[in-house]
């Protein structure tokens, strides 16, 4: 019962957040310098006919909330209109570039998890030993180094100086994609891996000092069971939240990475559109990114119901 209530509350909160987000995105048109008409005209010559078409198409003569309503009903059907700059369908622009960003995000998360889980566990278990100190210092550097600084350094060292990886574009086909996206994925993963390492190290330290670890050893349980059922299960729980944050944040992170590595993804598209004041594209990308964050957060909350009994069961005494 209370699980349903929990899910219900989360869903309701999600809907409210999405509504507010969409209002903000739509509001961009009104808040931008210059008249909406001028903005939507883009680079086209300003003829009275074209202006009238645009006014009609975007319902510019109706009140603000009606305009929003028209835009929203289209948006939920994935119709964001056409780019003010190229007249291309916004959905088509996004469709073309989506896979590069998605691949980059997933690749980055995989790299981050592959590095962070062993490193964080090792640092937590070997607290204070030289290995821990190296890992902790590395994580500190990685968490402080901005993604763009790291991108340019990686490009210089592995792209230009050593010439191991390409310096531009995403390549064709999955295999080439993966090869081309390796440096960008590392640049994207560095910060999140560092975050994960710090979190995992702290929770391993916390769990190893728990009474239940000593009690497990006192009962002669096998090291395999203590490691998996006791240490891993308890210390890896917070990793789920972080993975969600990382995945949701990678769209925002992709802006800088794609710009640095010349990748034609959603992030570099956003910069282009922002610079061109191509409002329909910016609106769509902003809504898409915000919605991803909100939905991923919801999924993480739901996942906790499945894996953490403390969330699954109401906290009432038997």
């Amino acid at each position: 019962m209370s699980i349903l209530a929990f899910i219900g509350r989360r869903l309701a909160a999600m809907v409210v957040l999405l509504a507010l987000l969409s209002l903000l995105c739509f509001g961009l048109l009104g808040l931008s310098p210059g008249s909406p008409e001028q903005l939507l005209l883009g680079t086209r010559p300003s003829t009275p006919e074209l202006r009238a078409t645009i006014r009609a198409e975007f319902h510019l003569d109706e009140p603000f909330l009606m305009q929003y309503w028209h835009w929203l009903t289209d948006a939920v059907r994935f119709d964001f209109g056409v780019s003010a700059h190229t007249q291309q369908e916004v959905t088509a622009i996004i469709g073309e570039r989506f896979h590069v960003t998605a691949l980059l995000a997933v690749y980055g998360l995989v790299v981050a998890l592959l590095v962070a889980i062993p490193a964080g566990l090792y640092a937590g278990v070997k607290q204070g030993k030289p290995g821990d100190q190296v890992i902790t210092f590395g994580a500190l550097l990685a968490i402080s180094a901005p993604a763009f600084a790291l991108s340019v350094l990686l490009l210089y060292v592995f792209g230009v100086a050593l010439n191991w990886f390409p310096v531009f574009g995403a390549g064709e086909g999955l295999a080439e994609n993966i090869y081309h996206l390796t440096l960008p994925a590392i640049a994207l993963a560095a910060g999140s891996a560092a975050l994960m390492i710090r979190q995992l190290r702290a929770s391993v330290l916390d769990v190893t000092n728990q009474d239940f670890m000593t009690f497990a050893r006192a009962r002669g349980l096998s090291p395999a069971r203590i490691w998996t059922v006791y240490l891993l299960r308890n210390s890896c729980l917070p990793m789920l939240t972080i993975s969600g944050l990382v995945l949701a944040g990678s769209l925002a992170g992709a802006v800088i990475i794609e710009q640095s590595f010349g990748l034609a993804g959603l992030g570099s598209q956003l910069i282009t559109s922002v610079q061109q004041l191509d409002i329909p594209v910016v609106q769509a990308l902003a809504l898409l990114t915000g919605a991803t964050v909100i939905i991923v957060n919801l999924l993480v909350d739901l996942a906790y119901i499945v894996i953490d009994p403390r969330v699954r069961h109401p906290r009432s005494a038997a």
Partner: protein
Amino acid sequence: MSQIAGQAPPAAAPRKRRRLGVSVVLCLAVLIPIVISAVFGSAIAPHDPALQDPTLGALAPNGTYWLGTDDLGRDIFSRLIAGAYTAVAGPLLVALGTTLTGTVIGLLAAYRGGWFDTVAMRGVDLMYALPAMLVLIIAVGVLGGGYYVAVVLLIFLTVPTNIRLVRSAALSQKEMAYVESARVMGLSPARIIGVHILPNVSPTVVTNFLLDFVGALVGLSGLSFLGLGVPAGTADWGLMLAENRAIMDLNPMAIVAPAALITLTATAATVLADAAYKRISQAGAQRD
């Protein structure tokens, strides 16, 4: 010492100056020259950071130009010194703004509770759902406005984290018996918050200040890197990194130096934040 053991606890250590740790000294060694550069700027630079000499082109480091020049012949080293201003001033403003407002709102939300707390926390939740960097890019890019608009926006985007951290630190203090005793004694809320709770959340506040500085440094220089924020031609570490990408094979220092400087500054402030937290919370430690 041993005679009184068992009779009385060891005397409280006199508040003498404790020696700074090696890591703190290293951090200060990084940060102090940067702050000096930010204050004096081009006055202490060996060359005019804006002076172009297209005949030079992108030179590798040499005796005259220690870190070489960019493709317009401007001295990299001098531009780095001049760039310290935007790397320090904006982040400092952001950190001050967020720490002040975040601490005040966080303390009040924790102590008063009720509607104030509810409103504050719902606002925080909303801001958490927005990816800060993206909002910054869109807002600065679409709405226009330069560096200082970005500074104000960053304050808004960062303050929720502050509120949340200060609030939870203050909440755990609020439950402690000494706060309840102060309430029973009839001390005013202002005194309880200011004299009793604030000193005990100060480790969080100081850490927030330094970490917000780091976040703003990364955010603002990231904006510059993307060509938003500071105007083209400004000596700014993020912008230099973007502009000099084209000449990385001619003068690698043109990108390595600004990248390293941003990273070093951020790392030093982060280490300082960790050290400050430990030191301040030890100074008022509850248990020995």
